């Protein structure tokens, strides 16, 4: 499917700007649960879709923001390529624009890179109803400030993404997942030791009892690394990493309590907070299901050099992301003012002040 709605989107934004009506930017709605509760008039970009340029030999794809991840990944797969940051969908119809706006990355993140690492360029609609282009379709580009990466993970508060260019990567020739019975403490040490050695590690997870290690690369090197690391091969490993972990289909994620995402320096020892834990990214991303008070969680994460996000559940009108220092918050406000002087885009989605 391909449809250019730039003109309509621009016109709708002009109307909103003239009336000072805040808007909530929407794709398929799959990520509406993230961040603080959406506010403003719905502003759908889901119809603005289509792959504009795909150059397998140059490792780049450009698509309109409403293009589904499914279409993009399907197109790449035909050429043996993929989005190496493994973006979570969190629902059918997940769009490219929302994935980049939310800046989410999947299991490969510490080994292959994050969403923003693969963003090469964007075309955006700013709060002054201008369509601007930054970055491009080339791997190396240092002309002007890195606006494309600034937009990544900004939850649409700085502009409406119209097009995104991404670096793509080849699908590895071979892949294997090994499972070992390990305690949390052992798992943290081992994941980081192996990551410090030249092994083709591309994903790690610890569910409390078992350590899962994914190896990807050339056939021979995966086989060799598997013999170094050891463990039971996991037969249905694609489902494990994709459906259970990336899409949070794992039983761990299906509980009543609030789901916290705790980001830490990878080798941080286990935090002494009660609740259910699931760890990935070599220990850098730890999920916690708990009824514990938010301040206790934030304090523990902060003390360990990390930060905590209320990922699912809990009070979506309160604080969701870790707070910023006053100086950093001021810079955020200045940037918001620079891109969206009327405060139209996704008000309060990250912080009440933005």
């Amino acid at each position, binding site marked *: 499917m391909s449809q250019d709605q730039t003109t309509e989107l621009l016109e709708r934004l002009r109307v909103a700007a003239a009336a000072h009506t805040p808007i909530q930017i929407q794709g398929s709605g799959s990520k509406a649960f993230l961040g603080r509760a959406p506010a403003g008039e719905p502003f759908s970009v889901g119809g603005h879709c289509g792959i504009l340029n795909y*150059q*397998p*030999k140059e*490792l780049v794809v450009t698509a309109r923001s409403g293009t589904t991840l499914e279409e993009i990944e399907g197109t790449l797969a035909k050429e*043996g390529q993929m989005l190496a940051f493994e973006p979570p969908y969190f629902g059918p119809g997940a769009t490219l624009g929302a994935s980049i706006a939310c*800046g989410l990355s999947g299991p490969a993140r510490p080994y292959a890179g994050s969403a923003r*690492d693969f963003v090469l360029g964007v075309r955006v609609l700013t709060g002054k109803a*201008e369509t*601007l*282009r930054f970055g*491009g*379709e*080339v*791997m*190396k*580009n*240092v*002309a*002007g*400030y*890195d*606006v494309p*990466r*600034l937009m*990544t*993970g*900004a939850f649409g508060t*700085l502009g409406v993404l119209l097009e995104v260019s991404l670096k793509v*990567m*080849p*699908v590895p020739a071979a892949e294997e997942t090994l499972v070992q019975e390990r305690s949390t403490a052992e798992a943290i040490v081992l994941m*980081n030791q192996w*990551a*410090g*050695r*030249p*092994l083709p590690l591309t994903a790690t997870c610890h569910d409390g009892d078992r350590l899962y290690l994914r190896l990807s*690369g*050339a*056939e*021979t*090197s995966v086989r*060799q690394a598997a013999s170094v690391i050891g463990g039971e091969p996991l037969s249905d490993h694609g489902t494990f990493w994709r459906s259970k972990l990336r899409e949070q289909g794992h039983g761990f994620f299906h509980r009543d309590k609030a789901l916290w995402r705790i*980001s830490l*320096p*990878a*080798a941080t020892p286990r935090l002494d907070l009660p609740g259910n834990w699931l760890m990935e*990214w070599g220990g*850098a991303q730890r999920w916690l299901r708990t009824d514990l008070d938010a301040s206790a969680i934030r304090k523990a994460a902060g003390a360990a*050099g990390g*930060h905590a996000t209320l990922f699912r559940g809990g009070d979506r009108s309160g604080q969701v*992301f*870790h707070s910023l*220092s006053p100086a*950093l918050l001021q*810079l955020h406000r*200045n*940037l918001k003012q*620079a891109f969206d002087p009327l405060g139209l885009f996704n008000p309060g989605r*990250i912080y009440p002040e933005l």
Partner: protein
Amino acid sequence: MKQIIILFAALLLSACTTEQSNKDRDKESSGPTVYGQINMSVDILEQEEEVGPYECDGLSAYRQLPLLVLLPRTVEEVQRILRLCHERDIPVVARGAGTGLSGGALPLPDGVVLSLARFNRILDIDPANRTARVQPGVRNLAISEAAAAHGLYYAPDPSSQIACTIGGNVAENSGGVHCLKYGLTVHNVLAIKLLLVHGELVEIGGEAPDSPGYDLLALLIGSEGMLGVVVEVTVRLLPIPERAQVVLAGFDDVEKAGAAVGEVIAAGIIPAGLEMMDGPAIKAAEDFVHAGYPTDAAAILLCEVDGTNQEVSEHIARVRDLLIAAGATEVRTAKDQAERLRFWQGRKAAFPAVGRISPDYYCMDGTIPRRHLPEVLRRTAELSREYGLPVANVFHAGDGNLHPLILYDANRPGELERTEELGGKILELCVEVGGTITGEHGVGIEKIRQMCVQFSPAELQQLNLVKQAFDPKGLLNPGKGVPTPRRCSEYRQLPDRERGTG
């Protein structure tokens, strides 16, 4: 001017004693003087012979003596300098090793050069988390040397890595020959400590992934010293690959060499390095270092793969087959480490090699979508003939980053100007085919005019608004990186012949 120097020196040195710093505190009502008690160790250079070495960076065609050069040793001293400059509206140009190639560290006649050279300590290497925390004046290569004991290294390797500093790398978002696989500085830095224009310290990014709020780290990396002054950098370290191996391939046609690059990548192999040189560059390099290059080739490719031992063997075999199928006239795998280093030596020495055959050379830095390589090389050759100035091409082929080297003689009247004009045309050609005016050297002062070709007035205005969000008075490295809209409208009005760089 002299008055400001004296004022500066007085303010900095007066902080040595508590009594004097109290006096200072009275004078400076507009902020807390928490630094009053610090024993200042700032070196202040003001004599012409002292500031002379700072008059240019690696782009020596542009020179300007600064008012003053300051070499602080502590973060508090830098804070104090920034606060004073901010209060008195004095522009500040931060500087690392000065190896930059776009005039990004060019001083201002009424400004201060803030050298971070004394910030040269590696603060911490954390093998468990695979990170290094370093001061900005630490040399790029020194990080890898210090990490080697743990089997780790810092991946970005600009060709100046022996001398260039990590602070400068952050300012320029430096690349190197391994970018396609390992990324640029922005992919390998985890956190920075930054002083804002008024001296306030902020911590941006962190060892924990995906810091809350906007990705200010990405915004700061490559911002050419225009948004803040970096005083500490935490980088990601990678395990040293088990093995690296390089293949040298000769082609009788540049277009075939370009196509071969696409074939390797389409086959699912991401080489650690993939470099191309054209005939003139090959000959200059071979004459200089005797790397064993085929001097009759129209182009050579150097394709390096790294990884585990088995992976490298598997990939080298496939790369060889792909290169032969793509029409290589000759394919040689380095038979040992010595030959591998020799193959690279030629590439790494390409710039000085060209320097030997010409009194001067001017290095350009455009990036293009690789499929347009034949067109860009053909039109570059046409421009080269038109201007009567030879051009040798060195190309980070994997990621499309082209370094045309224009050979000229600065002693011939008008030749530098014509060289710059030719360079400007080449960069505009890169934009025309969908590329960019700078892949890794930065805009600096050199390419500020071509920014008006790459960006629309509204886009430039937006970039200027980003600048204002950090530095409303425009005191940090003014005149670099992003042109004012007025400057662009003047440039656009110039007749075509006069539009060139600089």
